[in-house]
């Protein structure tokens, strides 16, 4: 039997609110299934499961605030039989006296108070929520089995909560992650001016033959070049964990998506180095749309091995970014512009150029490695047809 717990969706997450179950006891689940929706500081996130088997029991109710690690459901493995004996009913105290009863096996559910008031039966979750909200259970009508007060009854009785401001919540999440990064990660920074004329010409010619639906953006070329370069430089692609730096075997490229009105989220595009430019465009379009709609999947928030932040067409020249822990590098692209560039014959000519930057973790790589990485991105952008 495996316990499926509230996952951590990043260094900055402490808890989430369960808003929807997509499974019920008896359902079969497999790795990667979306089983629940959890409201976090980063919006509503679809939670994927990493166990296989049959849902034995749900351990959390919709509406509950649950810390990372709290049990959500019990999953019986595909090769485990049905439980030998049904779980003993709570009332059937074994021979041992009640005072010596073993600790409750469900750590998330606090023990019920020893002596509820006469006629007052309430679920543990309802008691916790009532205490949080300052609701007197004596005044609540129970609709559960035997008139027991359940979570929904408490919610009904409570004054309507002030809706949390999602922008303020996201600001808190960003603050926590970035403060942790600046506290723990010894950043070093590199900047490199890259000639984008070849990529710009190639893109203009390619898009001239395409209908709007299939056109490419410079952002897709930059993402692909970055992912290909990252695949060859282990020191910038991976995670720094308790045991030290762990290079990643794949490149899952986090794409920083700015939200209108403020806030930022960086869903990961899996195996970004193996996507064609058309696939990259589709993946970026999908990730941006779902990031804006607040409907990302849990793995997209945790799988990133390196992050790319592009300042777009109307931004500033360059950025010195902050690494998203536990990643070890963040690549920044400023706004491409026509700039005077020295030619081989000594004359000046306007060329489309962009400044790329690297913020990297000095525990995982040195400046020489980082420089090789930025130079490789630049080289790849000189041959857009090969991306």
């Amino acid at each position: 039997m495996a316990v499926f717990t509230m996952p951590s969706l990043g260094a900055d997450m402490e808890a989430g609110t369960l808003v929807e179950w997509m499974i019920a006891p008896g359902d079969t689940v497999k790795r990667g299934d979306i089983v629940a929706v959890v409201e976090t500081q980063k919006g509503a996130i679809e939670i994927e499961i990493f166990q296989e088997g049959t849902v034995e029991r749900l351990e959390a109710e919709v509406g509950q605030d649950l810390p990372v690690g709290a049990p959500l459901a019990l999953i019986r493995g595909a090769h485990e039989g049905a439980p030998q004996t049904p779980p003993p009913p709570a009332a059937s105290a074994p021979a041992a006296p009640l005072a010596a009863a073993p600790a409750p096996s469900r750590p998330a559910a606090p023990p019920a108070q020893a002596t509820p008031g006469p006629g007052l039966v309430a679920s543990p979750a309802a008691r916790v929520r009532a205490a949080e909200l300052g609701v007197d259970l004596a005044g609540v009508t129970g609709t559960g089995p035997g008139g027991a007060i359940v979570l929904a009854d408490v919610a009904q009785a409570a004054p309507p909560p002030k809706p949390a401001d999602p922008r303020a919540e996201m600001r808190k999440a960003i603050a926590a992650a970035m403060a942790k990064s600046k506290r723990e990660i010894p950043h070093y920074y590199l900047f490199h001016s890259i000639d984008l004329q070849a990529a710009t010409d190639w893109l203009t010619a390619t898009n001239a033959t395409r209908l709007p639906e299939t056109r490419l953006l410079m952002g897709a070329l930059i993402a692909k070049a970055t992912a290909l370069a990252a695949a060859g430089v282990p020191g910038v692609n991976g995670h720094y964990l308790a045991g030290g730096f762990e290079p990643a075997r794949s490149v899952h490229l986090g794409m920083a998506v700015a939200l209108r009105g403020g806030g930022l989220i960086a869903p990961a595009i899996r195996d970004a180095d193996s996507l064609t430019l058309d696939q990259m465009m589709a993946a970026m379009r999908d990730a941006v749309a779902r990031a804006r709609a607040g409907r990302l999947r849990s793995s997209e928030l945790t799988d990133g091995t390196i992050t790319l932040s592009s300042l777009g067409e109307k931004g500033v020249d360059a950025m010195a970014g902050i690494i998203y822990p536990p990643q070890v590098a963040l690549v920044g692209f400023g706004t491409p512009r026509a700039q005077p560039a020295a030619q081989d014959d000594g004359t000046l000519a306007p060329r489309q150029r962009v400044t790329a930057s690297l913020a990297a973790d000095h525990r995982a790589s040195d400046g020489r490695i980082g420089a090789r990485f930025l130079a490789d991105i630049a080289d790849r952008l000189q041959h857009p047809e090969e991306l």
Partner: protein
Amino acid sequence: MTDPEIRAAFLAALSDVAPDIDPATVGGGDHIQDDLELDSMDVLNLVATLHKALGVDIPEADYPQIATLDLAARYLARRLAS
């Protein structure tokens, strides 16, 4: 199509691409990138949506001509008439 119909179609496409923007608040001179904060992906999606809705294929070189509601209304009227 009349000018009000074209403007309504443009605002509908904008709303489709950026549901968080209230079309009623969009002024005729608001720049879709500078004022409404559309990024290059949003602009491309807007062009694709207009292509589907109106059958007008806007080449990249013409993107500046749909940068505001007023500009787009004139540009799309010209393209629809030709």
